[in-house]
């Protein structure tokens, strides 16, 4: 499977992280059982996924062939 371009992946990661942050904050503003469980599980799960996407981009970037004339 071919992954999208780095820029696209980072944009997806950024959107996912924003969703994760909103969910994580939901539990702080609405301290009931369900919001807290959602924020600690779904919110942090999506957040982890977005960070993994960022790491994928960084790894791909590191593996990339250096441009001609590079060291």
């Amino acid at each position, binding site marked *: 499977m071919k992954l999208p371009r*780095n*820029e696209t992946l*980072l*944009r997806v*990661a*950024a*959107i996912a*992280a*924003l969703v*994760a*942050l909103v969910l*994580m*904050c939901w*539990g*702080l*503003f*609405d*301290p*009931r*059982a*369900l919001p*807290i*469980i959602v*924020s*600690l599980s779904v*919110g*942090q799960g999506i*957040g982890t996924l*977005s*960070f993994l*996407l*960022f790491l994928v*981009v*960084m790894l791909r*970037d590191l593996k990339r062939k250096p441009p001609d004339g590079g060291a």
Partner: protein
Amino acid sequence: MEPSTAFDNVVQSPMAAIALAFALGASIILVWFLVRRPKLTLTVKIVMFLGLGAMPIAAALAANVASFQTMSKRKFCGSCHVMTPYTADAANPKSTSLPALHSRSPWFGNQSCYTCHSDYGMFGTVATKMAGLKHVWHYYTGYRTMTVAEALPKLHLYKPFPNLTCMQCHSTSLPGWNRVPEHASLTAEVRDDRVSCASEGCHGPAHKFSKDARKKLAEVLP
């Protein structure tokens, strides 16, 4: 003072405020990245590491601590409607029930449910959290649609209330405790959980109204 609005919860909990600050910082970076669409230079990568990694992780850690603190509060226990008679009695300044008396403690009064119903020992916190998840499961799969009157006779502890919980504060070894004749004659039984501190005739039942509701149901049922 108990939090009364969503913002009060954040203002009164430093960890919640820290979590919110990190989340806000990360959001600013992420929105900037989405709107400006900058080239992936080294500086942008470092900034994105902050926005996607460091700051959200810090926010999540602070939110975990804040949530743990919130979940220990009596107000949180009362957020499930079937628990409101219990939390209302505990908060009632005129009540002389065991929970109400303990809820007036300046040390753990606003966390009285958690203090008396959490497991102790090495894995006590984990066991308490697992039991808490079980409560949430039962609430959303059953009790949520019941009225308080319907739920009260059905609510029960998973296992008998252990005296060890009481003995976290009442050691059963001080002279004042032993001066009570009933205590002195039952010390061994109390320490071995053969006689419950919260049994009828001693200091219980702790939540009398719930036992009365169960008795009423038993009388109605054939």
